[in-house]
């Protein structure tokens, strides 16, 4: 009978349960997505080649577990608040505590298992969709990527079910130890924003110190190695929480002193914020961290993405070279409208490739000479035969040769000495277009044509020049790019569902406040404006903290990236801000729809 009653309660509040389920499904789906990459060792090995990445993933996994813990605690208190009244009623009509405990336990676990299973399924689909999208739009090559990865699914299931078992136990104790009457009226709890200056000062100083230590260890990752990531993880999580906790109350009290706080509904909005302060500090710290992770991941992914063509361009002055090109191939080269194009004749002996010095003097060969230690700073130098013979960069000519000729020494002969050689003469046509990236498809076709009569052109990455370098480097960095973007999207979605969950779970309680304001003669514009402002504060605060975290966190990647991780960060920041804004607008719309019916 009681089970039937419990089911009726479930049916009556399906809307609230929908919020609960969608939040939990999203959370477990993202946890699965992350684990599908993090626990897939063969994927990590094949695609990164950097051992640190696998460690970063492990720490990321720990962080996500912490976030999940808080998130489930949150979801559980939402569930509990929904059911308190019902269970209080059951007790009033004389249900036994043991029976009620059983029901609570069962319900919590049922919600958890169903949501987690759905989440894993959804996560698999999401992994599939997002990875296809990224691979296609970024032109990546990935190996061993599996959307369905059993160990990840198992890990997700174990973590979530374990947490829900704990949550069920917690609910059991809370509900059976609380008197029935208190359960019925648990919603009207006093909550006065309290200022405790000493404790706040301690939190501010402690939080700042913790964050400083975290930033420092990220910047000194070369010395600390994986310990540094661990330190940063713990200190930044705690520091962020302390700072939010200490500053938020003070900030609202301080804002109330301004005249503008007493115009329209501003004071109402501030009071709303301070009313739920303790819930908000937790969620805001989490959102700030997720914001930093998502933005950091996307920025790094973009950094790697941007780095690939730069590295390719720094590898050689020429896009490609063809040996004895046919007429069709020459036509294809002409169609590319090359910036420079030169034919060098050569003869191949056992240990050397012989060129005619006069040709090089008439048409100097350009090498890219490194400037300083930076791999990407170079000077283009035109070399005569004599200069090239002495230059340490003459290997760039060798690279453009095919087959076994790449490692042979280049020797520049006088015409008479060259003509005496008995070997057959071949032509090496080198050319450079204005932009190798823009011409990738045409270059691909050209190599394919060449491969028809010369087996050396069958494997494009074995060739020399920018085109082949691009292909090599891109496949090398594909994994890192993919992880950056993939995790960025995953964390953004997690952040979205966290905030969404928080805001929607508070909306029901806000409904009567907004109705009251309406009765008092508040215009619709004032009401929507108040909602916009309240939610904007909740978005902006963690956003600011998240951006600061990212700016310092990028220090970690100066050891992994050739370029500075800070170059061109405005682009990912702008894209992220756009996504964040869209998400803000959606949240405002949904909230308004719930509250202002």
């Amino acid at each position, binding site marked *: 009978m009681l089970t039937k009653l419990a089911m009726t309660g479930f049916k009556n509040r399906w809307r609230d349960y929908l919020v609960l389920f969608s939040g939990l499904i999203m959370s477990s789906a993202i946890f699965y997505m992350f684990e599908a990459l993090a626990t897939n060792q063969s994927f990590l090995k094949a695609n990164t080649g950097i051992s640190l990445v696998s460690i970063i993933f492990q720490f990321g996994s720990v962080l996500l577990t912490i976030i999940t813990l808080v998130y489930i605690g949150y979801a559980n208190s939402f569930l509990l608040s929904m059911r308190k009244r019902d269970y209080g009623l059951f007790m009033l009509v004389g249900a036994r505590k043991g029976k009620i405990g059983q029901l609570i336990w069962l319900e919590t676990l049922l919600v958890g298992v169903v949501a987690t299973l759905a989440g894993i399924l959804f996560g698999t689909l999401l992994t599939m969709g997002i990875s296809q999208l990224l691979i296609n739009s970024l032109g990546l090559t990935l190996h061993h990527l599996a959307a369905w990865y059993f160990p990840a699914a198992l890990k997700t299931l174990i973590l979530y079910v374990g947490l829900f078992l704990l949550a069920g136990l917690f609910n059991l104790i809370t509900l059976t130890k609380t008197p029935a009457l208190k359960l019925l009226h648990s919603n009207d709890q006093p909550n006065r924003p309290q200022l405790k200056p000493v404790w706040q000062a301690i939190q501010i100083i402690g939080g700042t110190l913790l964050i400083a230590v975290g930033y420092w260890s990220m910047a000194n990752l070369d010395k600390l190695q994986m310990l540094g990531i661990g330190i940063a993880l713990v200190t930044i999580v705690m520091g962020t929480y302390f700072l939010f906790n200490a500053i938020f109350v003070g900030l609202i009290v301080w804002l109330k002193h301004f005249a503008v706080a007493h115009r329209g509904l501003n004071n109402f909005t501030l009071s709303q914020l301070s009313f739920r302060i303790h819930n908000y500090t937790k969620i805001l710290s989490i959102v700030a961290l997720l914001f930093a992770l998502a933005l950091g991941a996307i920025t790094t992914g973009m950094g790697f993405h941007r780095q690939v063509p730069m590295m390719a361009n720094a590898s050689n002055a020429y896009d490609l070279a063809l040996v004895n090109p046919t007429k069709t191939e020459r036509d294809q080269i002409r169609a590319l409208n090359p910036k420079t194009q030169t034919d060098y004749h050569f003869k191949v002996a056992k240990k050397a490739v012989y060129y005619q010095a006069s040709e090089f003097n008439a048409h100097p060969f350009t090498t890219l000479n490194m400037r300083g230690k930076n791999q990407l700073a170079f000077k283009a130098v035109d070399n005569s035969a004599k200069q090239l013979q002495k230059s340490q960069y003459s290997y760039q000519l060798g690279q453009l040769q095919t087959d076994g000729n790449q490692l042979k020494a280049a020797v520049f002969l006088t015409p008479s000495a060259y003509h005496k050689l008995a070997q057959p003469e071949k032509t090496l046509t080198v050319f450079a277009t204005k932009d190798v990236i823009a011409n990738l498809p045409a270059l691909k076709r050209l190599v394919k044509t060449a491969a028809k009569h010369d087996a050396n052109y069958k494997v494009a990455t074995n060739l020399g020049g920018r085109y082949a370098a691009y292909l090599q480097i891109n496949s090398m960095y594909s994994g890192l790019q993919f992880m950056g973007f993939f995790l960025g999207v995953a964390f953004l979605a997690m952040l979205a569902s966290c905030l969404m969950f928080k805001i929607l779970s508070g909306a029901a309680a806000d409904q009567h406040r907004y109705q009251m304001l*309406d009765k008092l003669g508040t215009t619709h514009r004032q009401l929507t404006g108040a909602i916009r402002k309240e939610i904007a504060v909740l978005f902006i605060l963690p956003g600011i903290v998240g951006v600061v975290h990212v700016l310092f966190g990028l220090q970690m990647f100066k050891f992994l990236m050739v370029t500075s991780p800070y170059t061109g960060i405005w682009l990912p920041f702008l894209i992220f801000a756009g996504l964040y804004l869209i998400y803000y607008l959606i949240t405002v719309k949904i909230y308004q729809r719930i509250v202002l019916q």
Partner: protein
Amino acid sequence: MPNTPIMTVANLHKTYGKAGSKQYEALKGIDFTVNEGEFVGIMGASGSGKTTLLNMLATLDQPTSGEVTIHQQPITHLKGNQLADFRAKEIGFIFQDFNLLETMTAYENIALPLTLQNVAMKQIKPAVENVASQLGIAEFLTNYPNELSGGQKQRVAAARALINQPAMLFGDEPTGALDSSSARELLDLFSKINREQAVSILLVTHDPFSASYCQRILFIKDGRIGQELKRGDLPRKDFYQQILDTLGTFEQ
């Protein structure tokens, strides 16, 4: 005493349910006027339509037909910002369950109607303090609603309703959640405000004691005004007895 009407209600009907489906007529043609400075009570049993009527008068709901005019302004077709402005400037509400915003202090709750109209902080403070001292809640201004007793909460609600100097004050069972001494204090306060500041008050109640503070009582039964009772110069105690007698016969 000038007998200018502050509110006129003409042939008010309210039908619930869509045409074609099962309909229920809650109000079946109500006519009456309230004069400026009058203290009028509306009585009726549960389901008689008195709350429905109040909701129409206070612009919270729209009638199916008929017209309500407050301060020479027809109100039944007000919409959007006009409606909000009208509520903010012309009428004040007091509800049975207080309807205070528990996230704000008493001061902030009382000041809300003024801040909504962007009145300067300098003018708000004396206005709030003035109305608070009149209602005897000056010392509770920094408290949050959940730190106040029911009677105190209702006086905060009354202060919030009065701060705009509304043309009409509506009360929906304002003493319903109060103990008898708090109820008596609140009703005394209403009489005082009505007497000294000539605020017109319309009180909906099913409690004869609350009703005995009114000058005139309209009895509603099954969506119509069944009877009207005037206090005249009668002492409150006698009027109370008269109400009890009327109720005894009216509800039969």
